[in-house]
């Protein structure tokens, strides 16, 4: 069907996008790789020298790295747990017929559109502040000591904030998946007397499994890079209690000006993200054939 002529022009039309993305990938990536083998600090210009794997050795044996890795895993898994379980139940609820469906749907997805710095600051100051926050008022109302969320449970608080931002995403995708569920199959099982829990477990959940996998993989890609929420709430602290890998590398590169060390960290982050990416790509690739 396609002529030689159209094939040639197709190649020309696709090339700007390919060349730009290729440049975007290769140039900074190779620079990161190159810097990671150098002793290079912006505060000491002209002192650059090749140091082999020293940066990696320092980065990987730094106790902060282990803390950041643990925090990253806890943050990703914590948010995934809350959003996937919460999302399934919310989708289940919103899929039922009720009055004002459209409005409630709009209310539920709203947090996804709030920029990260706004949601982090609103939660930090107006809710979690130990003196004037709404939670503090609420605690006092019940005669409890106000709790300083971001000082005493920094990582859990950040997990809460990020979950609030991502719950709408999970809900929206799972709701879309629910709506393509075969209603007749459900009715048949209902008539056969299957209890609700069995219908949920054997019909709904398997139907959702694909959407759940997509939610997990896509969220993981974004959650590995959580940054703004940490920057405006805790600055990674107290100590390294809420520092994730992204934030650790940011501190090393732009606050300590350690280009070599920051780059070594960057390479480690890229390798970790790639492990997740491989699974995601397989999923989407399969779908492309279908």
């Amino acid at each position, binding site marked *: 069907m396609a002529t030689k002529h159209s094939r040639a022009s197709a190649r020309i039309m*696709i090339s*700007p996008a390919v060349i730009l993305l290729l440049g975007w990938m290769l140039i900074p990536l190779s620079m990161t790789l190159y810097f990671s083998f150098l002793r290079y600090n912006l505060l000491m210009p002209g002192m650059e020298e090749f140091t082999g794997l020293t940066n990696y050795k320092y980065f990987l044996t730094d106790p902060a790295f282990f803390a950041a890795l643990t925090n990253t895993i806890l943050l990703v898994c914590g948010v995934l747990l809350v959003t996937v379980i919460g999302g399934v139940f919310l989708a289940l609820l919103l899929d039922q017929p009720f009055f004002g469906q459209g409005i409630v749907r709009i*209310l539920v997805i709203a947090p996804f559109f709030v920029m990260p710095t706004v949601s982090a600051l609103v939660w930090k100051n107006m809710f979690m502040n130990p003196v004037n926050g709404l939670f503090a008022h609420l605690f006092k109302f019940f005669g409890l000591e106000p709790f300083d969320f971001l000082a005493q449970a920094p990582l859990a608080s950040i997990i809460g904030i990020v979950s609030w931002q991502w719950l709408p995403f999970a809900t929206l995708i799972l709701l879309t998946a629910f709506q393509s569920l075969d209603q007749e199959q459900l009715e048949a099982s209902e008539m056969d007397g299957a209890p609700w829990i069995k219908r949920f477990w054997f019909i709904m959940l398997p139907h959702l499994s694909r959407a759940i996998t997509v939610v997990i993989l896509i969220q993981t890609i974004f959650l590995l890079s959580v940054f703004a929420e940490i920057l405006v709430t805790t600055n990674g602290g107290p100590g390294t209690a809420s520092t994730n890998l992204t934030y650790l590398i940011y501190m090393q590169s732009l606050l300590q000006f350690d280009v070599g060390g920051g780059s070594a960290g960057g390479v480690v982050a890229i390798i970790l993200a790639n492990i997740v990416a491989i699974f995601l790509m397989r999923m989407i690739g399969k779908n492309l054939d279908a």
Partner: protein
Amino acid sequence: MARSVSTNRKLVTTFFAWAVGLAIFFPILWTILTSFKTEAQAIADPPIFFNFHWTLENYVTVQERSNYFRHFWNSVVLSGGSTLLGLIIAIPAAWSMAFVPSRRTKDILMWMLSTKMLPPVGVLVPMYLIFRNLGLLDTQIGLVIVLTLINLPIIVWMLYTYFKEIPGEILEAARMDGATLRSEILYVLTPMAIPGIASTVLLNIILAWNEAFWTLNLTAAKAAPLTAFIASYSSPEGLFYAKLSAASTMAIAPILIMGWFSQKQLVRGLTFGAVK
């Protein structure tokens, strides 16, 4: 056949759904309400919900003290500019992949997607140095380029899935009637693709408006969009709740409205067509 649901059950569901919906929306509602209070009312204990003296003074103060509209304008330029630039690059690419697929089309699509998996922090150092050496730090043009590149894979993918749904026969018919490639794209394809392009534009503006890694790291004062401006409220201005709320409300309002319009397309765009 639709299942008949008893009114009772519907009422119970209505109650729960509204309770959950309002709980999730509450932080946003509270921010909007607080933006119309005085600072004293904003931190009052017990909290005041509606019976306060509504005032617009916070909005005025925020603009006067911090030149709010410059940051707002920066956000508009960055999200609008990166979307426009992205479309110019992506439309031809998506067109050719959808209508003149070759053996490598799938590989190219997957490869484009893989660039999106690159964690931004992995290239933070080189990007910072490149920007510094080219004098692009804290400039609109520099950020427009970065935002275009990070969202280009999503634009190409979304357009591709929409173009795929346009029947190829129509294009063939146009071609047989002697339409050139240019007029084929301009007069046949584009009108049919407008709904798809519109939702791509919406999603991309939302993503660019809320992007908070590069905008925070590559801007200072001049080109800072709202994400970076609000971050400067981190302390101590953030403790002035009413002003923080006014600045926040203005920052999220346009995107909230756009987002509500694009909720259906959102699923498709964010899952790269894996869930429709």
